């Protein structure tokens, strides 16, 4: 029994770090601009398909596809931002609808380019198992991207809190006019943050491709997962994203172990609702309320 739970928690932790990668880009844009990018999951998926093309067509390692993925995905992300700036009224709901429309376009575009077949890496190293202390099992890719996930969360946290542009981004989100008075061009800053969100989606997409199976209709569920984690974390809390993601990962994993994997979705949704209703600003959010 102990082995069972230990492995379950271990798997959950690894899954959590991976979920954090998926959620981070969405959390960044939502935390700083109050925009929920419903096409975020599709951006992650797009990066996964770029890795697939790099691997199957050019024989490249999935990680080697990262630069190409970053360029294409970050560019797409910036285009989404530029479209979002065209919205004049009811920004909250209209940005949801606009990004939803873009998500539909991306899903169908991916389907047309890459067909409905499932894809996953064939690079053996990623899938080889690694055993820790004879009792904990994982794939190399899970360990690799868990480490990357933690590092990236740290890097984003540092960027937002310590760098000039990170600070500028927070300033723009806090008070746009005052930020201009500090010599900040809000558009440049926001374009940068969408580009960074695209970069994060690219890393997440490589993690997705090298550990899981991708198919064109996957984007939507990635977006939902990312949003749930963002809400659990609390608005604007980057470390909270990691903790919220790990919470979901471990909860899902323990549900599968102790109960049934058919109920994973139920448990994570209940967890989401409970946190939302009981802790109005999320696990680590600042004082801003949702009510």
């Amino acid at each position, binding site marked *: 029994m102990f082995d069972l739970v230990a492995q379950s928690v271990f798997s959950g932790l690894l899954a959590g770090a991976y979920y954090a990668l998926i959620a981070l880009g969405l959390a960044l844009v939502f935390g700083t601009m109050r925009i*929920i990018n419903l096409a975020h999951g599709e951006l992650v998926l797009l990066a996964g398909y770029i890795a697939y093309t790099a691997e199957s067509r050019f024989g490249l390692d999935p990680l080697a596809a990262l630069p190409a993925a970053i360029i294409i995905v970050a560019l797409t992300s910036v285009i989404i931002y530029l*479209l979002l700036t*065209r*919205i*004049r*009224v*009811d920004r*909250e*709901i*209209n940005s*949801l*609808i*606009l990004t*939803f*429309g*873009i*998500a*539909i*376009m991306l*899903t*169908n*575009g991916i*389907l*047309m380019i890459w067909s409905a077949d499932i894809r996953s890496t064939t690079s053996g190293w990623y899938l080889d198992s690694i055993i820790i202390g004879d009792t904990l099992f994982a794939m190399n890719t899970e360990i690799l991207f868990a480490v990357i996930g933690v590092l990236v969360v740290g890097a984003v946290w540092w960027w937002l809190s310590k760098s000039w542009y990170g600070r500028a981004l927070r300033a723009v989100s806090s008070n746009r006019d005052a930020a201009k008075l500090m010599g900040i061009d809000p558009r440049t800053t926001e374009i940068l943050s969408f580009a960074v969100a695209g970069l994060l989606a690219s890393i997440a997409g490589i993690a997705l491709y090298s550990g899981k199976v991708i198919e064109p209709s996957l984007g*939507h569920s990635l977006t*939902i997962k990312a*949003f*749930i984690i963002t*809400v659990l974390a609390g608005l604007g809390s980057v470390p909270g994203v990691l903790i919220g993601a790990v919470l979901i990962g471990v909860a899902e994993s323990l549900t599968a172990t102790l109960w049934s994997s*058919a*109920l994973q*979705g*139920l448990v994570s*949704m*209940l967890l*989401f*609702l409970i946190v*939302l*209703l009981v802790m*109005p600003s999320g696990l680590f959010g600042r004082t801003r309320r*949702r*009510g």
Partner: protein
Amino acid sequence: MMKYLSLIIILAGAYLAVPLQFGGNDYVIGIVVSALTIAGIAVAWAMLGNLGGMISFGHSAFFGVGAYGSALLAMNAGLPVFPSILAGGVIAGVVSILTMPTLRLRGPYFALAMLAFAEIFRILAIEMRWLTNGSGGLLSIPRLPTVFGFDFGSRLGGYFVVLTLVLLTVFVYWLIRNRPEGLALRAMHDSEDATLVVGVNATRLKAAVLVVSAFLTGIMGAFNAHYINFLEPDYAFNGSWTTLAIVAAIFGGYKTLWGPVAGALIVYLVDQFVFKAIMPSGHQLILGGLLAAIVIFSPSGLLPWLASRFRKEAGDAAHP
């Protein structure tokens, strides 16, 4: 007077011209019925969005509950189909009480909390096998009956039923909108503080609108169950019931009475008849692009845009 006249023309067209023109073509009528089903949900959704300022991503929860409720009552309790459709709506309304804690939430938080409810109901429908037959679903759900020699179970019969349901939904929406509470709710959209000063109990009103919206959505779900004669959790609680309705409502203009209906008809019919003919398997791409375009170019929706164009033209004509 003009207003009533145009209403009469629309009604006559809907009840007479459409059946006369397309009554023999099950395919066209079938697509129109699907579009009207979306229209019904879209109106119920817009009611919550416009009156309560609450954007829900989880209306498929009420659609599914209404559908299962009605189907199970008709199949297991032997209730006649029309009363059981009504009962399905009532069940959806009652179930919406479970979701009321979410009324404390705002904006995207409310939207996603409702989505979580829809997902929870979907999984429950899979797991509660004794009641719902799990993922196997329900086949051969009783059709709409034949009344006074008219077969409501036919495509055309279904058309009349769903048309009437949609019109009733719009009528209910109109009634609520024009009551003082409706006005208060619309004001609340702009500022919650304002209504608190006026002395309206905002939360109770919102709760009432939620129940009505859930009831109307449940009715559409119940109708669909008896029209398609089939249910399974993934279908009944499918997110597309919500997203299509949102798309339709936004497209037509969710703050207007008829916008959601017009949006549903246009989006669905144009998508199925035109885009699908041009692009047989990727036509949703165009739909997505259209949606993005309307948000950018006419954010209040198509109907308000047309209305302003019309007024402008009329104004130009009056003052040459």
